[in-house]
């Protein structure tokens, strides 16, 4: 069936609503990659099998990431007329209890959270789940809006993730999807669209933060009839998975955004450049594109408007540098993924020399909401210069690891403590790293800073794509600098001298420092090199590679000096600089350490204090971990 009108779309909406809010029991299993890596696949299969076997009148559906990654595998249960309940850390035992409860019509205990209504962001409404009286046991489950993890969040890009089945376009439509496109093609001009996006203040979510509307305008005004839209789904920052979750949980929000962008700039073809390491994304995207094409929402003469647009998937091949827009373009063209100098900018001369708009996944995800709810609504969120919301992957030394979306201007402190639940194991916060390998480390003294493009840049970091790595007092900041520099040394394309040779030499220096061969002159050299690479590298990879080094030199100089002057690693991380010894007063001679030592470096008689032979010790830390008397000292 080809969708040619809003009326057709309404039919699909009804279809989607029927599965989104069915009259029977609905069980939703979080089946994004993080869920699957924790065993959600087996959970899904067990529930599906159990429902069938026990003839329970229920439908079992896959959904995307709801963000509570630390509680995966997650299962949501929707009993007709009842609020939606989320169950966490599902295993076979809990699945059995769940099925038991469903058979008996009892409320299953242990729910983590309760959702009273299903928010329809685009329609600015909410559909209550409950009808009539609700059992007390259900009401005693904390409401989502009261959970610390969710309280300060505002989901726009992630609005559908965790609710809809990402493999069913009708559920996306039921949530208001593609109505925006229909309205635009029927009533708006490309100029209207660009003006609205400009007014919204949306800035590129890939990290650079260039005004999206301005980029579209430049491209629209560029000469030529052949133009392109590219979606950059090469997400490469270690620890960042915002784009992966978006594409696994709600691919159509990105697709719709691309089609609207195509209309705005006058392009007929779009490309989604997806990194090869995201197989589930590729699978879900292929399905989503096929469904959209099947309904005529992609292809010729969309909504009978005369506007045609197609999207082709282009796969990456294991190069971080191909996230850089000009290298990405070369890769699509079938050439070496090497960046080139700008100007000319892709908006004027991009794919095959034609004007090209290239935007990040999350940027596109915001387009339909902006067009439906309006620029004023979007720009009412956030700060003066940074409008809207931002998706972050909150990872590292934090209690509640997950994917979150907050209004710009939210303080780092709120992200780490209120949402993230603070530092685990009673340890102290040391720093938070933002922006991946292009970013910097923000020390704990500055965690009152709001999340804002300019504020983070001023602090020596960048907003970046959204990776937020929390670090505690057991993180060595010199090791962190070495980690990021080593990553970039691996990923450098090798075209320009400052990056190809400079970063490798910085890595050499950091290795020397962390292995006890550093000198004070090395710090001066390291800083001078970092400055020079920043100024002379060809592309963003090289230009921002020095940031982790420079920011740690500014805020954690004392750690560098300890490694150099005292040949000591204060955080106890750099293997060459730590020694493990046994405190003879604490040691009970139980021998647990002897059993775990992989190189038999520990000597001692039973019930007598033991001793570590320093020359044999490989600093693996196994004895430190296992000692019940905490007698091993680092």
């Amino acid at each position, binding site marked *: 069936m080809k969708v040619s009108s809003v009326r057709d779309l309404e039919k699909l909406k009804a279809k989607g609503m029927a599965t989104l809010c069915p009259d029977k029991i609905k069980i939703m299993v979080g089946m994004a990659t993080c869920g699957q890596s924790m065993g959600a696949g087996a959970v899904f299969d067990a529930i599906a099998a159990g429902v069938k076997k026990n003839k329970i009148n229920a439908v079992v559906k896959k959904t995307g990431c709801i963000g509570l990654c630390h509680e995966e595998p997650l299962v949501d249960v929707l009993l007709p007329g009842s609020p939606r309940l989320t169950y966490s850390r599902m295993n076979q035992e809990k699945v059995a209890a769940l099925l038991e409860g469903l058979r008996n019509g009892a409320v299953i205990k242990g729910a983590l959270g309760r959702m009273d209504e299903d928010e329809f962001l685009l329609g600015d409404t909410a559909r209550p789940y409950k009808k009539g009286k609700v059992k007390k046991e259900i009401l005693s489950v904390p409401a989502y809006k009261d959970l610390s993890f969710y309280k300060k969040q505002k989901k726009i890009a992630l609005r559908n993730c965790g609710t809809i089945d990402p493999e069913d376009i009708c559920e996306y439509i039921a949530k208001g999807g593609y109505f925006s496109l229909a309205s635009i093609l029927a009533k708006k001009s490309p100029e209207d669209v660009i003006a609205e996006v400009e007014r919204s203040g949306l800035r590129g979510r890939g990290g650079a933060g260039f005004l999206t509307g301005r980029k579209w305008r430049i491209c629209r005004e560029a000469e030529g009839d052949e133009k392109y839209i590219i979606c950059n789904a090469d997400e490469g920052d270690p620890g960042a998975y915002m784009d992966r979750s978006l594409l696994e949980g709600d691919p159509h929000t990105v697709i719709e955004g691309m089609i609207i962008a195509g209309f705005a700039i006058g392009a007929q073809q779009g490309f989604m450049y997806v990194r090869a390491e995201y197989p589930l994304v590729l699978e879900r995207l292929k399905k989503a594109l096929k469904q959209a094409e099947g309904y005529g929402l992609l292809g010729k003469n969309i909504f009978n408007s005369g506007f045609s647009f197609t999207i082709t998937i282009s796969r990456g091949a294991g190069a971080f540098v191909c996230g850089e827009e000009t290298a990405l373009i070369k890769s699509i063209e079938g050439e070496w993924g090497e960046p080139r*100098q700008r*100007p*000319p900018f892709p908006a004027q001369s991009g794919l095959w020399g034609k004007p090209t708009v290239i935007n990040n996944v999350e940027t596109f995800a915001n387009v339909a909401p902006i067009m439906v709810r309006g620029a004023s609504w979007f720009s009412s969120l956030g700060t003066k210069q940074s409008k809207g919301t931002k998706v972050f992957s909150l990872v590292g030394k934090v209690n509640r690891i997950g994917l979150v979306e907050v209004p710009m201007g939210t303080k780092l402190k709120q992200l780490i403590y209120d949402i993230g639940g603070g530092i685990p194991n009673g340890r102290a916060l040391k720093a938070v790293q933002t922006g991946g390998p292009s970013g910097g480390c923000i020390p704990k003294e500055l965690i009152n800073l709001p999340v804002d493009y300019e504020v983070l840049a001023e602090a020596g970091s960048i907003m970046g794509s959204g990776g937020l790595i929390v670090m505690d007092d057991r993180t060595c900041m010199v090791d962190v600098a070495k980690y990021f520099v080593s990553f970039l040394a691996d990923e450098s394309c*090798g075209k*320009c*001298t400052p990056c190809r040779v400079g970063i*490798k*030499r910085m890595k*050499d220096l950091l290795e020397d420092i962390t292995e006890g061969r550093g000198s004070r002159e090395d710090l001066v*050299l390291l800083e001078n090199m970092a400055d020079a690479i920043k100024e002379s590298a060809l592309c963003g990879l090289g230009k921002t590679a020095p940031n982790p080094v420079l920011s740690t030199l500014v805020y954690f100089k004392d750690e560098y000096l300890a490694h150099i002057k005292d040949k000591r690693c204060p955080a106890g991380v750099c293997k060459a600089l730590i020694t493990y010894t046994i405190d003879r007063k604490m040691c009970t001679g139980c021998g647990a350490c002897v059993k775990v030592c992989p190189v038999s470096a520990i000597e001692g008689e039973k019930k007598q204090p033991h001793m570590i032979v320093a020359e044999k010790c490989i600093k693996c830390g196994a004895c430190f971990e296992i000692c019940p008397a905490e007698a091993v000292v680092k």
Partner: protein
Amino acid sequence: MESNGMISFKIDAIAVTVEQGTTILEAAQQAGISIPTLCHHEALTPYGGCRLCIVEVARGDNRQIVSACAYAAEEGIRVKTATDRIIRLRRFIVGLLLAEAPQAKVLQELAEELGIRAPARFKPRNELCIACGRCIRACREIVGVSAIDFAKRGYEKQAAAPYFERSEDCIGCGTCYAICPTGAITLRDIAEGERFTQPDGSVVDGPARIIDNWKVNFEMKRCKECGEAFAPAFQLEYIKKKAQLADDFFDVCVNCRP
């Protein structure tokens, strides 16, 4: 831009007017201003990789450091080719390259011009290939056989034949050898009666041309008149085919032609 397709801008203190599409490097050369280069060659498309030719460009309020060889001049820009900042960065770049290939004459000369020595802190790598890409661009753009390309990424990036095996497309013309700035390519012509043992143990009898880097060797064609072995036979076959020349076109060498 002026209506006749000409662009006016300033390089250092000099006002220049050039055709649209002229790079800053070309404009500077026209104006008699010298900018050092390494990966650039006038017969090849610009690469902009070595970053030696960097200059400061001011376009309105926007300031950038760019490779002069790869920047098409724009109306009204102000270019500075030798500020303290640029000199410092050029010294940095040459210093890095010197630590890679201290034996390369071109780098030694650049170092002397810039007044620097090899950075003592870095152990020399002694790898002459500095990934400038001239050989690759020449093979692709001038010779047209694309026998070689870059292999590996980052620090290990090198010009190589596919899979580091014998290049199947190389015609032995030696353009790569001629255009390499550091002498990273080893090409030897051996005479009649001479023998050369390649690293893999195989023996090549002269007259032959051997290019170590691409693991190729070619029998040389002898002139019917003077007997001189003057070019690889394979290369001449390639040229004959490409330019549609008579079969005996290269039987006599250029010196013996009437």
